[in-house]
């Protein structure tokens, strides 16, 4: 087990006259949020272990503009987008993988009209491909008998119709996948989307993350899995609020795979 991650940047690769197969878009949460950074590291461990030739933009990466756009500030969004597209196009990026469904959605759907055309994958899809190509084998043992439920991130599920890739990954873990009543197309938001992450909620009688966490907890799962750094924050807070953090873990799909393979 090694903690030294190999994370080449695009600039380094370019200087060496090399090109990656895929660009890993880390995202703001993945770069700065303490909990999300663990997801980033787990995903990189898998990339390193499977020998995927990837690179990150590093300090050249900047916010996709998603929260600005959803808060209604199209200016800030487009400024961010144009800046990012200039960088991505200069490096002739063709394929992007990201651990954030918000970045995924924005890069995939909103950048093309602004001149940024890439093949964009969420990490669940990318991991799925690695498995299909025989490059990644998941060792189930660690999760045998564990009850795992999956919280669909809105921008992955409803936003982009990706429901199966995350579930296929969980199935590989040998655990027991249990579904909440509101799952897949009916999934309930964690409360973070639409830039809500960055402000207090409007007046109501409950926080959305509490409502969602309660639903997950009715299944008495060992693990609540998700595939979004913002859902991670919301559900983790919800579990703490319900004082269940000793019984229930919240993990990202990448973390589950990394743990299963003892990376």
């Amino acid at each position, binding site marked *: 087990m090694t903690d030294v991650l190999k994370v080449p940047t695009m600039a380094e690769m370019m200087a060496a006259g090399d090109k990656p197969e895929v660009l890993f878009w880390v995202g703001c949460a993945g770069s700065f949020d303490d909990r999300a950074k663990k997801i980033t590291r787990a995903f990189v461990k898998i990339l390193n272990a499977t020998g995927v030739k990837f690179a990150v933009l590093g300090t050249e990466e900047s*916010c996709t503009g998603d929260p600005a756009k959803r808060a209604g500030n199209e200016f800030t969004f487009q400024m961010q987008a144009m800046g990012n597209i200039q960088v991505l196009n200069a490096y002739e990026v063709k394929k992007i993988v990201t651990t954030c469904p918000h970045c995924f959605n924005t890069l995939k*759907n909103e950048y093309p009209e602004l001149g940024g055309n890439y093949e964009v994958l969420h990490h669940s899809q990318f991991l799925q491909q690695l498995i299909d190509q025989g490059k990644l084998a998941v060792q189930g043992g660690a999760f045998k008998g564990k009850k795992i439920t999956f919280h669909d991130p809105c921008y992955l599920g*409803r936003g982009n119709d990706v429901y199966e890739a995350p579930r296929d990954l969980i199935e590989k873990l040998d655990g027991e996948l249990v579904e909440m009543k509101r799952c897949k197309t009916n999934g309930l*938001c964690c409360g973070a989307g639409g830039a809500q992450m960055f*402000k207090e909620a409007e007046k109501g009688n409950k926080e959305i993350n509490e409502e969602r966490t309660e639903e997950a907890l009715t299944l008495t799962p060992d693990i609540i899995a998700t595939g979004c750094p913002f859902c991670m924050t919301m559900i983790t807070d919800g579990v703490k609020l319900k004082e269940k953090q000793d019984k229930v873990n919240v993990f990202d799909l990448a973390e589950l795979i990394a743990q299963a393979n003892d990376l």
Partner: protein
Amino acid sequence: MGISNIIFILIFAAAVLLFAKHVKFIVRNIKLGKDIDRSDRKDERLKLMIKVALGQSKMVKRPIAGILHIIVYVGFVIINLEVLEIIIDGIFGTHRVFSFLGPVYNGLIGSFEVLAILVALACLIFLIRRNILKIPRFHKPEMKGWPYTDANLILIFEILLMSAFLLMDAADYNLQQRGVDHYVKAGAYPVSVFLAPLLSGMSDSALIMFERGMWWFHIVGILGFLNYLPYSKHFHIILAFPNVYYSKLDPKGKLDNLESVKKEVELMMDPNADPFAAPAEPQGEPERFGAKDVFDLNWVQLMNAYSCTECGRCTSACPANITGKKLSPRKIMMDTRDRLEEVGKNIDSNGGEFKDDGKSLLRDYISEEEVLACTTCNACTEECPVNIDPVSIIIDLRRYLIMEESKAPQEWTMMLTNIENNGAPWQFSQADRLNWKNEA
């Protein structure tokens, strides 16, 4: 041609004209919206319309309501074939003009009767669900008053229409049995044959009166119903089709990129642009960013408002609404329609020009609080049986708030400043973006 035929023709013509006039009003209102190009992917749109509008694929997501609705819908459409005969009979004074079709005719009317009783039953169950079981989504604040009455009126009306149809057949059957002149032998029909004995005590003339009464009630009722539609959420039976056809085909997560902003940003980012050059001649009025009023929305959004059935499926799936926030996507659609109707009437009473009434969709109808509460989760668009997109309206209103009025909650202002200054919604330096690499 008798006097009753003339009366019929007059009523019929008046009803059709009145309806056409109201439809024109609605079409004009929808066209007040800005242009949006939805002329692409025609095959896909057609298929979607057949599946979602005609096939009601999204209705059955909630099986009880879905199946009952399909019964009412199929029944309603098919029974209206009978209206064709009624109209011909009404104009020419014939009776059951299609009865020469023999067994085919009998089969048709027979199946209409079965449908009619099913429709009436379904409507009864709907009434019970609304008024006795009090399904919560029918009792949200925006459903108070007219919307609540509207829903009940329609259901009661449908039951009355179906009863009239069945009773008419029952009287007719008695008259046929007695060999009364004019009442062609058309045979017994599956439902009315059981109702017939109830009327058998009546004299010939009373029966004829009764049969004619039911006939008139049925047709005048249907014409009345037609003219009620444009005032009601029930206009969806017409607009559901174009509404689904022109709905958004892109992934739900995608929001449109504002063209007006794009032009300005491109100019700002263009290294060759001369910063001291005089700005290009503004062409007409500068476009408003986002939406303050219905004029700022596009015609698909306005058509959405007229297509909303007020079913509340969106609201019952909305995380904000579920947790007690004021936001209700159904209310967004109802408010948009109400405001649009108000604007339309304003235009009509001011000789075709809109006279500023000091009101707008934002604030007078939809509050900032509602606009800010949306998580853009798309549960509402997923739920909507006619593919309405409340999120796009919410986002356009937000855009106006943020870009035209700079009215963002303070936390958002901070977040936006951070993105602009250091490329992340939090206050972290861009230079630290790769620090995670070496943190264990």
